[in-house]
């Protein structure tokens, strides 16, 4: 990210220097202003949904969903310790209801427990967990709906179903790819 940022900044500024040098500062400061406005919109969305997610977490909804995930997890991750299984289930369930605050620590703990101290190569179950998170299977894309609403969309909820379907398709593709291409690598880990 640092390199991309540097290249973009130098290239844009040098280019602008030859076209309209006065535009550099105007554009930059406008962008900062815009960021602050966006932060206010985002704060509204995050405050509401993270508050809701916290309620869901404390009420034990994540554990409830995690229970239903036992069998699929067994299929995706193979035999793991109970501890790892519960971290994995928590991660997936929390991601589904959009409680990323609960999802990330669970994933870090799961991968930590799966790894041996000297291990330098990711094992297949670790890659599986990573892919599930990267292809995100969120039931309700709360941030997206919030931004659509803030920009005056007539029906922000319209996006829920297509987003879920595309998300599901990419998750399934990810699972298939991991199952096909990461299998033989298991041996050099153990």
């Amino acid at each position, binding site marked *: 990210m640092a390199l991309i940022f540097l290249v973009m900044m130098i290239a*844009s500024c040098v280019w602008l220097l030859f076209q309209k040098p006065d535009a550099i500062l105007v554009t930059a400061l406008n962008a900062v202003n815009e960021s602050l406005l966006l932060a206010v919109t985002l704060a509204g969305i995050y405050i509401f949904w993270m508050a809701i997610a916290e309620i869901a977490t404390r009420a034990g909804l994540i554990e409830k969903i995690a229970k239903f995930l036992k069998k699929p997890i067994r299929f995706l991750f193979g035999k793991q310790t109970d501890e790892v299984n519960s971290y994995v289930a928590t991660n997936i369930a929390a991601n589904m209801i959009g409680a990323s605050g609960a999802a990330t620590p669970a994933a870090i703990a799961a991968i930590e427990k799966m790894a041996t101290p000297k291990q330098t190569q990711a094992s297949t179950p670790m890659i599986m967990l990573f892919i599930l998170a990267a292809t995100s299977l969120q039931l309700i894309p709360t941030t*997206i709906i919030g931004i659509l609403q803030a920009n005056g969309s007539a029906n922000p909820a319209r996006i829920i179903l297509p987003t879920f379907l595309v998300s599901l398709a990419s998750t399934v593709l990810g699972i298939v790819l*991991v199952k096909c291409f990461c299998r033989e690598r298991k041996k050099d880990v153990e």
Partner: protein
Amino acid sequence: MALYIVPLFIILIFVYAGFKGTDTYGAFVKGAKNAIALIWDILPYIVAILVAVKLFEASGLLMAICDVVAPVFRVLGIPSELVHFVFLKPFSGAGSIALYNEIVAAYGPDSYISRVASIIAGSSDTVFYIATIYFSKTNIKKLGLAIPIALFCTFFSAVLAAWVCRIF
């Protein structure tokens, strides 16, 4: 139907929490507090990305790059207006939200381009960020095929989003 999903989800959570005897008020306040801290944390990243992207756009370089890759994107069906968004998505979560907001504001929230961007934004996460965070407590450096598979899936969902939005 879609209109009822969000309200029902919220009601379900409150009813479930009430049934379980959760301190909903305390939880709500705690969650809100965490959100404020989160916004505070990501604001500098949003500023950095928006400044860079806006300058890039103003310089005309963004258009130039879009023109170069547009034919490839056209074949796959992804609108060329989303080129920079598709490329930024795996690198920066906060940045891609900023860019997403830009796109929605520029093309209108119910336009085809905004709908495709919405699905892209909602159907994948920040690949490189997750890769760093998830493995942060181990010594694992070699992720094997993890990143290539994740990027491929992300790109696949962008292509699929463009097709799905023609139907929905």
